[in-house]
């Protein structure tokens, strides 16, 4: 009830009653409000009670709900990584045991039977490692990456195949923060060493359908779509590229704008856009507003070009994608599709015919679909192809099949540019301490020696041989089919072409030249087969070495296992750090929640002291209202007249 003006000349009976009714009603409404506040414990029961604070409260509720989710994810990540940590610990123990067995069995006091018995123990370790690799927590395989729900390691003939993926899962653990809750099984179990990493940047050119999202952009920061301002010295037109999806869309939009006689097309090298003017067009390209589209497209001009001088856009760095046309690879030269490649994985050799492949995906599918059992994929940098042998055990070679396909794709496992140090599983070529390393005897009986001390790559060896021959009928080259150095004798003699070591070098074997002679040719063997290392391979080797009583091999596998163990310890350390970070984050989240809840409470919850005081005040006001009403309404002059 509002306060009515008191300077009234008269007070009617109706006014007295309506004032009483009004003030009682108002006080009762206020009492109800306080009663509600006290009974719910909330001072804001609906947002309109206090829109300002309610809006803040609403946001705080949202924050708490969001943090609930982070908290759930943190708990999940903690338990997953906790399990990983314990698995890595088990794996470490197991590798330690294997190593101990290896050390204990290299001594001369151990009998062949004793080693066989130890081999049985190692086999059990092998099985345990497989079990650890396939551990899961609530159905999520710890080491399978995003390739769930099957176990990531399966026993196949000749070894253990990794069928998981190295893409590991992350989840939100804070605003704009994601944490991994897996580790890369591939890395833990050492499958990476079986990878043939693309040595060639496949360097695709632009195709009309190349999507802007697949471009690195001139600044290697992608293309930020917006407008660009194109001028020809007379007029300037803003070209809106915000709806462009492919590079052809960009060219179309610029041509549609028709600024003077300026036209856009692919640049000569096929990696950017070129703007050509006609006649007096002085081309300039500027940004619109604070955008970066022109510079991202490599078209930004700082000065206006002279008349009819084209703008040659920068390299837009097209990424290699599954959809990249084969024809656009290698700067538009494409690759040799007619010859194909030969992949040998363990005992399996597959000749892969790539004819008919239109896209990179077609090539990958042909490799992946072959019986070689390898996995080909685009590398992490997005510019080449990696071939991975998922099976630990056998070794992998990728060779030409008469052409240049494997080299073009950068996946030839042994090529003329391979460094000598990489050969023979990293052992390199053991050359002589001094003097010549190699003697080659031509079929005509003449011989010459070759010194390899300065050679760094296989090509250097080939050059050294050819130089040493001095044009006397022997030619060294790299095999066009298969992998290896080929020695061809054209002397026409009746003797036997041969190569032998000099000065205690081991170069013929290390270069693969100890292969058998076919007429006037020695087809050198592949001495750069990619060794399948990794935990399963190395434990397997230890087992086999113990079985076959091969002390050198036992020692070698012991060393490899030590390397595996070091890696596992390192990953365990990283995982431990991750778990610690998650714990710190969880604890920080709890602290934040306490602060937020306290703020929320101050906004939302009833201040009981204030509310009860208010309740009592209103109660008294109501009593006063009743009293006043009964007194005022009951007084009348009539009562005094007789």
């Amino acid at each position, binding site marked *: 009830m509002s306060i009515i003006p008191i300077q009234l000349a008269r007070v009617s*009976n109706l006014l007295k009653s309506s004032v009483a009714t009004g003030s009682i009603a108002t006080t009762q409404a206020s009492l109800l409000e306080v009663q509600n506040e006290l009974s719910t414990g909330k001072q804001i029961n609906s947002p309109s009670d206090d829109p300002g604070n309610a809006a803040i409260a609403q946001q705080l509720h949202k924050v708490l709900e969001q943090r609930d989710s982070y908290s759930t994810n943190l708990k999940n990540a903690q338990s997953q990584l906790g399990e990983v940590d314990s698995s890595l610990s088990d794996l470490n123990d197991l590798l330690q045991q294997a190593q101990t067995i290896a050390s204990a069995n290299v001594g001369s006091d151990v009998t062949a039977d004793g080693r066989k018995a130890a081999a049985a123990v190692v086999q059990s370790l092998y099985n345990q490692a497989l079990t650890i690799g396939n551990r899961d927590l609530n159905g999520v395989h710890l080491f399978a990456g995003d390739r769930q729900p099957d176990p990531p390691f399966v026993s196949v003939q000749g070894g253990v195949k990794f069928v998981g993926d190295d893409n590991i899962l992350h989840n939100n653990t804070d605003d704009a923060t994601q944490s991994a809750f897996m580790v890369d099984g591939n890395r833990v179990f050492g499958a990476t060493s079986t990878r043939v990493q693309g040595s060639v940047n496949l360097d695709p050119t632009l195709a009309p359908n190349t999507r802007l999202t697949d471009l690195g952009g001139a600044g290697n920061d992608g293309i930020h779509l917006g407008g660009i301002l194109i001028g020809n010295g007379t007029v300037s037109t803003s070209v809106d590229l915000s709806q462009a999806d492919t590079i052809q869309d960009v060219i179309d939009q610029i041509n549609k704008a028709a600024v003077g006689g300026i036209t856009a097309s692919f640049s000569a090298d096929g990696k950017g856009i070129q703007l050509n003017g006609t006649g007096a067009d002085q081309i300039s390209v500027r940004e619109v507003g604070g955008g970066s589209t022109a510079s991202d497209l490599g078209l930004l001009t700082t000065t206006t070009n002279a008349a009819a001088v084209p703008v040659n856009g920068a390299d837009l760095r097209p990424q290699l994608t599954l959809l990249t046309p084969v024809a656009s690879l290698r700067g538009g030269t494409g690759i040799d599709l007619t010859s194909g490649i030969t992949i040998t994985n363990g005992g399996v050799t597959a000749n892969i015919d790539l004819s008919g492949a239109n896209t990179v995906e077609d090539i990958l599918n042909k490799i992946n679909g072959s019986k070689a059992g390898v996995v080909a994929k685009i590398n992490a940098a997005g510019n080449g192809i990696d071939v991975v042998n998922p099976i630990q055990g056998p070794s992998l070679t990728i060779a030409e099949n008469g052409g240049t396909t494997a080299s073009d794709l950068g996946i030839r496992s042994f090529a003329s540019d391979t460094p000598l140090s990489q050969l023979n599983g990293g052992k390199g070529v053991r050359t002589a301490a001094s003097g010549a390393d190699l003697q080659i005897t031509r079929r005509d009986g003449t011989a010459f020696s070759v010194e390899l001390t300065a050679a760094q790559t296989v090509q250097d060896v080939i050059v050294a041989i050819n130089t040493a021959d001095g044009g006397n009928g022997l030619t060294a080259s790299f095999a066009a089919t298969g992998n290896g150095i080929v020695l061809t004798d054209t002397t026409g003699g009746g003797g036997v072409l041969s190569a032998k070591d000099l000065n205690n070098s081991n170069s013929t074997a290390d270069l693969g030249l100890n292969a058998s002679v076919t007429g006037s040719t020695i087809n050198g063997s592949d001495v750069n087969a990619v060794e399948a290392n990794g935990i399963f391979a190395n434990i397997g080797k230890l087992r086999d070495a113990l079985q076959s009583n091969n002390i050198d091999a036992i020692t070698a596998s012991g060393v490899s296992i030590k390397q595996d163990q070091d890696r596992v310890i390192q990953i365990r350390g990283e995982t431990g750090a991750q778990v610690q970070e998650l714990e710190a984050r969880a604890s920080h989240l709890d602290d934040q929640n306490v602060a937020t809840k306290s703020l929320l409470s101050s906004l939302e919850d009833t201040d009981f002291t204030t509310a009860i005081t208010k309740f009592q005040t209103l109660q008294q006001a109501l009593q006063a209202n009743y009293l006043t009403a009964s007194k005022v309404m009951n007084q009348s002059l009539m009562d005094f007249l007789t």
Partner: protein
Amino acid sequence: MTLISALNIGKSALAVQQAALQVTGNNIANAGNADFTRQSAAISPTEDQQLGPGMFVGTGVNITGISRQIDNALNGRLNSSISDSQSATTQSEYLSRVEATFNELSDNDLSTRMSTFFNSWSNLANKPQDIGLRQVVLDNGGSVAGEVQSMRTALTSLQDDVNSRVTDLAGTANDLAQQVADLNGAITTAEGGGTGTANALRDQRDAAIKQLSQLMDVKVVDQGNGSVNLTIGSEPLVLGTTNRGITTKQDASSGRPVTELIIKADNGTIEINSGELGALTQVRGKIDNVIGQLDSLAKNLIFELNKVHGSGQGLDGFSDVTAENGVNDATAALNDPKTNLKFTPTNGSFVVHVKQKGSGLETSTLVKVDLDGQNNNDTTLNSLATSLDAVDGIGAKVVAGKLQITADNGDTTFNFSQDSSGTLASLGINTFFSGDSALNIAVNKSLQDDPSKLAASKNGEIGDNQTAIAIANLESAPVAALKGASLKDSYEAMVNGVAGDVATSKTNAEAASAIKDTLTAQREALSGVSLDEEAINLVKQQRAYQGAARFISAVDDMMKTLLAIT
């Protein structure tokens, strides 16, 4: 001067006091009647009689009039304040009901449900292949959709309430206008052009106008002949004894039925700014606005989520899929309004992956959705079907305006990814939500039937969670169609907008009520009946009457004395 004259003086006094007593009695009788205006009798002496030069003697008393104690200007202001107060109260009441439909700050409001829904996507990201978690996402999606739908229904039924209330009140207003017209006739007849006033009739008319003021801001124009004209805005409602009438008509041009007020005589629309009817019109606009915001929120939620979902993959590929949304014209560009698509795709592309079940190998094909308006080759549904049909391993056709894609045989399945055009979401392929507004938002039936189709993966791997995370992050992500606001911001803005309106309307109601109370008090001070005052009048008139009677008795004695001389 004669004794007879003196008797006449007494007689006039008796008559006048009797009449005055009647006025007092009438006032007392109406003491509890809020519509009554206190009356008072005007008494004046009758004309003097000249006894001699310069000597005048009174001849008694006479009643010159019985008038209402009223200030018409004050009454006008009071009526206007009644309109305003009623308007504010009604707005506050209805807006509170709008606010109640949100049920915000509780544990089961839409905002909580949205959080739970998006959080369940985040939880799914912890184990994307889990059917149980997928079911939870679907259930929570259903809960959001259900709540949005039920809010929409509640708001629509609130609008229906408003419309039917408008119809009811239009009838009441028409009756009151008729009463005023009738009373205009009665008053002019009763007053007959003379100087007197038909007080009771005028009180009745004032009461009718006051009631009418509760409904609308009516303007009263006194015609000077006893009748008043009423106008609403510039439209006359009552002209003398003619009621031009108020009625309603239905208008559905805005897509929702709206009951509009019109003048019966000429179907002229009337604009009411105050009173209960004015408030209802304004409230209806606000509810419309809230419905619009809710629809926009739902539409953006559906489209944004479907865009991400459409580019994601479930546990298995599709063997066949039919678009949820059809087009009216399969030969029109997909962004042409002729298609009648509720969500407009943009220039872009998407990738179709055809997977061989046996080998697991996929073949990807870029499908261009050309909507740049150039070269007359913009993508239509038919041309899209042709492009898709050309993809090895799948067939596509348009059936009854809907795109249908089918794997060529049982050995292949297909999936989609990287849709930069929004075409899949627009056509309703591989979507999470179906529908296009708050009215029909629902979780896609095909997902409910087969939760494995829920797209949590972005790269096609069963265990991948990138789409799930992208969707989990969607609630706070800026949406271009919402001018950069997020879905969460947009909903909060809607709730806070209504909360602000409710709070303002409550304050307005209190302020308007204060003005009304003040003016009522002022009116009461002038026109209200005070029983104390009337009691004094009563005593005064009683005594005057007794005095007059005593005077007559004295004159009578004098006459008896004179008559006794004979």
